[in-house]
């Protein structure tokens, strides 16, 4: 009897500490949304021939804004469903952790968007279609890894995949492909599309299992 309430108290303490410290929103739907938009954008960019470096940067910035807006709406829906505040302490911490790396990526992209128009064709292609996409991947990996300190385990590994993948492709160098835009859209689709979908499936299976137990 005495042990029951003691165990209950310990369980309550654990739940409350998690609620206070760990970001608990279901990430699988967010990953599915981001992955679907990333894959669709890569296909659209590829087949609609979004090929000039400036158009490429503008196109993917628009996709990023759309994805962020979609994720926000999903999070809001989850918070309303659980009758919890959207702007909770864990949410604030996660956003604060995400912000520096994402802001750096946004600032670099905006500068590139303005400067690429005046740059030589070859320079613009290398910067816009090779350096920037890989930079985005690395920045995004850093952001996810930083946010991972306030999220369930596993997300930091996801961040590392982006960091190492982006750096690895950078080390391999710009391919002598006949169509650099295809390479750029392909890389973006792989990292921001396929990888998110794969992680979404993994999370969906593990979160479902956790809910069942």
């Amino acid at each position, binding site marked *: 009897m005495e*042990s029951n309430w*003691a165990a209950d108290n*310990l369980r*309550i303490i654990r739940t409350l500490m998690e609620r*206070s410290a760990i970001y608990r929103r279901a990430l699988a739907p967010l990953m599915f949304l981001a992955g679907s938009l990333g894959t669709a954008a890569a296909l659209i960019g590829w087949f609609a021939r979004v090929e000039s470096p400036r158009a490429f940067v503008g196109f993917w910035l628009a996709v990023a804004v759309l994805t962020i807006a979609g994720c926000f709406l999903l999070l809001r829906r989850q918070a309303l469903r659980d009758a919890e*505040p959207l702007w*909770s*302490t864990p949410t604030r911490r996660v956003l604060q952790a995400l912000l520096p790396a994402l802001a750096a990526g946004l600032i670099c992209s905006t500068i590139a968007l303005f400067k690429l128009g005046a740059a030589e064709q070859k320079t613009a292609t290398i910067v816009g279609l090779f350096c920037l996409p890989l930079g985005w991947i690395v920045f995004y990996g850093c952001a996810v890894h930083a946010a991972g300190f306030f999220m369930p385990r596993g997300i930091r590994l996801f961040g590392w995949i982006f960091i190492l993948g982006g750096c690895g492709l950078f080390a391999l160098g710009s391919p002598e492909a006949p169509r650099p835009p295809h390479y750029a859209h392909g890389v973006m689709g792989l990292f921001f599309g396929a990888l998110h979908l794969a992680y979404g499936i993994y999370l969906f299976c593990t979160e479902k299992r956790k809910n069942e137990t």
Partner: protein
Amino acid sequence: MNPEPFLQLDRVIHEKGRLAIMSLLAASPQLAFTEMRDTLNMTDGNLTAHMRTLQESGYVSVTKEFQGGRPLTTYSLTAQGRKAFATYINLLEQIVQQTKSTK
């Protein structure tokens, strides 16, 4: 069964509402009054009363400041509060273990 751990439980923390407050604060460097009220579904009066008890025991410190022209009250655990909370959890674990071993 040895009643010793039960008798040692800190009565200030053992109350349900204050235990919840201590748990939230133990996992966070500081929390605003409104955040705790919303998370714990407590009324302003209830939370204020519990916070006063915890402050008087030296377990919680309060900071009052203005943010964007509006008053903001934040709370955090003191070193004494953190120690008392850790002791409380240890005692609970002892009680659970003791019962398991006597079964």
